[in-house]
């Protein structure tokens, strides 16, 4: 179909070296006959002119039996842009680490061409495939077709959000844990938690294979699971020599930048004081042929990362320094179970104590680590903090004080005149 809106402002965005979403949308409208794309361009041009968005607030729509996975959206100017009057998104749970067979991709395209706008996000910030621009009546049939093709919706609302992970063992030599398998396992175990929101607020898992954290979990997952090791960095001294021979300044770029200064390089041999290594990855990152993570691998579990609303952004904080996640299939199942037991204790506590729209990290802030650690049955360890408290406001408990808290004014005053 021909484009029906003038878009002089958007047309500017067809220029330049970076791929142009405007070109792509125009193509969908033109070649792809998407009237939704056509009206989206029109409404977006209006936004560009007026410097303000044109979507109504919220809108509760969905598919039967699910409490999430769909974000309702309606145009506030449907008289001008009728094809985007409904413009809901469906969040489709991506395969872990986002490998796609072209067959699967084409199936998704077919379904979306049939029911929707032809417009997607590959991918949403949480990790979902996002189908952008669906009418209410198309949601259910679209969902049915997705399910038949083996796809399901992801999370939205006060539910488990779609877990995601880095490429991991599929194409990265540093993956200390099987990110995809764990991501899949968590997703499958918690289907109910994902589809039927029942919590105070959202909860996100993100899984990175090593401390480089290529899925940015530490910034944005209520639970970050980050691969690490607890034995020694593997060193290939021959390759060290090759780096040196190639003119690479090991002293400056490796030894000098190690945050704990636990590397020495003498007489062409590189030595690491592993007990003082904090597994930051730097030396491995810059000499990938010579250094590798250890072989006793598992994950560090951190909790609480989130965006600023309400009380300011948080990063994930260490709660379990090392959880072994590596071994035979059976061992791994047990290890996953251990992790899930921990998570379920956490959820129970949060469910019980969390206020409306309070993330796990905020709850820990509000009630303190002691309450949290008791709830999840963990012992306090120094690895949980950058430094111990500096304020003297310690909430001692009655049971740790000899004689308890009951005291008598009379007894006190018998020794001390007022």
């Amino acid at each position, binding site marked *: 179909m021909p484009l029906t809106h003038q878009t002089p402002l*958007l047309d500017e965005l067809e220029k330049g*070296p*970076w791929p142009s979403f405007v070109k792509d949308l125009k193509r969908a409208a033109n*070649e*792809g006959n998407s009237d939704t794309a056509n009206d989206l361009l029109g409404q977006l041009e209006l936004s*560009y*002119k007026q*410097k*303000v*968005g044109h*979507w*109504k*607030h919220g809108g509760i729509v969905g598919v*039967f039996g699910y409490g999430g996975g769909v974000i309702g*959206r309606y145009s506030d100017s449907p008289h001008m842009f009728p094809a985007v009057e409904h413009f809901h998104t469906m969040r489709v749970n991506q*395969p872990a*680490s*986002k490998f*796609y*067979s*072209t*067959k*699967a*991709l084409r199936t*998704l*395209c077919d379904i979306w061409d049939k029911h929707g706008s032809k417009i*997607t*996000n*590959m*991918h949403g*910030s949480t*990790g979902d495939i996002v189908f*952008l621009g669906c009418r209410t009546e198309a949601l259910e049939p679209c969902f049915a077709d997705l399910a038949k093709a*083996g*796809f*399901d919706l992801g999370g939205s609302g006060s539910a488990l959000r779609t877990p995601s992970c*880095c490429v991991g*063992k599929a*194409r*990265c030599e540093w993956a200390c844990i*099987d990110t995809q398998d764990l991501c899949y396992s968590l*997703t499958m175990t918690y289907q*109910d938690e994902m*589809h039927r929101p029942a919590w105070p607020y959202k909860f996100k898992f993100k899984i990175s294979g090593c*401390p480089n*954290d290529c899925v940015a979990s530490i*910034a944005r997952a209520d639970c970050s699971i980050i691969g690490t090791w607890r034995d020694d960095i593997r060193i290939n001294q021959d390759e060290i020599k090759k780096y040196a021979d190639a003119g690479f300044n090991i002293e400056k*770029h490796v030894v000098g*930048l190690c*945050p704990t200064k636990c590397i020495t390089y003498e007489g062409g041999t590189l030595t690491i004081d592993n007990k003082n290594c904090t597994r930051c*990855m*730097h030396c491995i990152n810059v000499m990938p*042929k010579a250094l*590798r993570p250890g072989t006793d691998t598992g994950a560090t579990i951190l909790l609480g990362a989130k965006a*600023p*609303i*309400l*009380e*300011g952004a948080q990063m994930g904080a260490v709660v379990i320094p090392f959880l072994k996640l590596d071994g035979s299939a059976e061992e791994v199942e047990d290890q996953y179970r251990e992790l899930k037991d921990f998570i379920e204790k956490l959820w129970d506590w949060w469910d019980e104590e969390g206020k409306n729209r309070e993330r796990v990290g905020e709850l820990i802030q509000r009630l303190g680590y002691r309450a949290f650690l008791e709830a999840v049955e963990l012992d306090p360890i120094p690895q949980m903090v*950058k430094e111990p408290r500096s304020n003297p406001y310690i909430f001692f408990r009655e049971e740790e004080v000899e004689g308890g808290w009951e005291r008598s004014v009379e007894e006190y005053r018998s020794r001390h005149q007022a």
Partner: protein
Amino acid sequence: MSEVMKDRITDIGPPKYDTMWPDYIKDNYGKWLYHEELEPGVLKHVTETGATVFTVRIAATRLMTTLHIRDLAAIADEFCGGTLRFTTRNNVEFMVADQSKLEPLKARLKADGHLIGGTGAGITNIVHTQGWVHCHTPAIDASGIVKSVMDELAEYFHDKRLPAKVRISLACCLNMCGAVHCSDISILGVHRKPPLIEHDRLLNVCEIPTTIAACPTAAIKPYNFEDEKGEKVKSLQVNADRCMFCGNCYTMCPAMPLADPQGDGVALWVGGKVSNARSMPMFSKLAVPFLPNTPPRWPETVDAIKKMVEVYADGARPYERYGEWIQRIGWETWFKLVGFEFTTHHIDDYRFAMTTWRSSTQFRFTD
């Protein structure tokens, strides 16, 4: 059971990851030994047994139509055994096991107008959010700003190198659906006018107590509005001087819109990181509190970011992320180098403000 629920398939989750793998991933799973960056956008991964996979990464607009996806699939079929992947920053990766296919793949991608790059010490795709394309709370567009900025910085994607990675992110409102709070450079949509209040419909569409509770600064108070008939109707009012425009009230209450052509615009942030390499992860800090919303190309924003990238390119040492560099040279030096004004907005006045004050005589003179 109703008709619609019969035979209904639910809770099946996503396809299992390994159903998507080509042989060159399946066979080498977990066996990787090392990698090399052959050139920007081209990686070579080698296994313990000497098998290799070559990856070519291209820039993508994550706002993508099925037409475009089908084009990509066609390339993957032709060169990659029918597989491609998307990265965590919304680029697309094509892989080949056989080195002989590498150059033809690259040639084809270039021929189709794709930008190859995004790996290593440069600038990769901007992680971003919906903007005016889909969301109801944005202060700015997303895709248009990303396009404008990346047009300017494209050479750092496919060619020019920097001391280390510079991760740029964009979020169109303070909900920050991208990880913009921990990025080397972030672009944030901000409102600057307190919410309007639609007294005549507020009670119908909002819950008064949850809306009051939603305000982090307790700026919202109950208010009795007198309607046309002179009757008192329950509503809310905002103490504008306590409002910092977070928009959380609007999230809870559609009768309190913030968006405004003059009020809304861009704030820029700098120096965050996520990786644990060398330094611990860091939050991004305020660089520029406000730049106007200037579609279609947001020149003020583009210029400021370019300047930020250039001073970093000049000043930082190899492997030094943006925030690590600033820590070394001091914020006072950075502001001098970049030439941005330092305002009272830069000085924190929220919950942890005191922890950011300079409680030391250690600083550099910059005048």
